[in-house]
């Protein structure tokens, strides 16, 4: 399967059948090379969630539909995308309880389109309508280029299996 290049090649040096012992928070864990390799790959290829704002240490999710437009447009602009259906990115929308399937996100005449597998969601610039639940925009993998000035958090794989 075509995956992000680079890291996976380097971690290929870890042999699947090897067994590793990891001292994590004073507890000793044993994992196979295969699991450890997957963990490292997941770690470095982790998704990134973009937030609308940040107040102190608190990351603020999108609360209004217009927030989604503003955030999504910022992401598109930062990576150099302009307007039109060819100028998109594959992203997901995530609430506190659910992550969507991938969408194709693009801007067309101040309307941000999220084209998914079963629907198309539209978010208008300046729309103050409250979302049914707060949302963030999430990448499939890693931080998008030139977006490190935005508010984001890396979604770490929390646990070793």
């Amino acid at each position, binding site marked *: 399967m075509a995956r992000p290049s680079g890291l996976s090649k380097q971690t290929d040096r870890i042999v699947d059948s090897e067994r590793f012992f990891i*001292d994590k928070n004073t507890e000793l864990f044993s994992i196979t090379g295969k699991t450890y390799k997957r963990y490292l790959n997941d770690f470095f290829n982790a998704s990134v969630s973009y937030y609308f704002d940040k107040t102190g240490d608190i990351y603020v999710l999108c609360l209004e539909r217009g927030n989604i437009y503003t955030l999504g447009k910022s992401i598109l602009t930062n990576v150099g995308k302009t307007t039109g259906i060819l100028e998109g990115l594959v992203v997901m929308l995530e609430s506190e309880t659910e992550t969507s399937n991938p969408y*194709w996100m693009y801007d067309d005449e101040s309307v941000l389109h999220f084209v998914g597998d079963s629907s198309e969601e539209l978010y208008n610039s300046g729309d103050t309508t409250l979302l049914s639940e707060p949302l963030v925009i999430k990448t499939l993998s890693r931080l998008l280029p030139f977006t*490190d000035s935005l508010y984001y958090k890396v979604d770490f794989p929390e646990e070793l299996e």
Partner: protein
Amino acid sequence: MARNAKSVLIVDSLDIENFSLTEYDNDLYKYKIEDLFNLIHETPRFGVLPQIYSGATKGGTVSTRDEVFDTAYELLIASFGSIEAGDTGQTIFLSILDTDIQRLYTGNWYLEEETLKCLESSEEFSLEDLTNFNGIVISPYGEIIGTELWT
């Protein structure tokens, strides 16, 4: 989860981009887990932008279901060198956008005989199916290995 380690295996060399561990020490794995967290917090880990393909070229759009098949076929050949029909181990991760009905089909695609199938959905595209399909074939993770010289 197994405990009570009898011995610890040694990794001779593990280079993770600019983070290189080449020597073993007793705290290697503990250090690594903690350091990985710090590293990814402190240093942005950039991905790449999606790459659009049509046929064996970068960019462009497709206009028939056959052209979707052809594009994925070329990408599979580029990625694997040769392909065996029906081998679900030879898949390629693509998002296929239908711009007429505004739908996106994302998943791992493979060939079965003369049909492009998706592991995650029932959508499929067949060779020589000239039915209109206006859309875009997208590699969400950017340029696919093997297509570096495509223009």
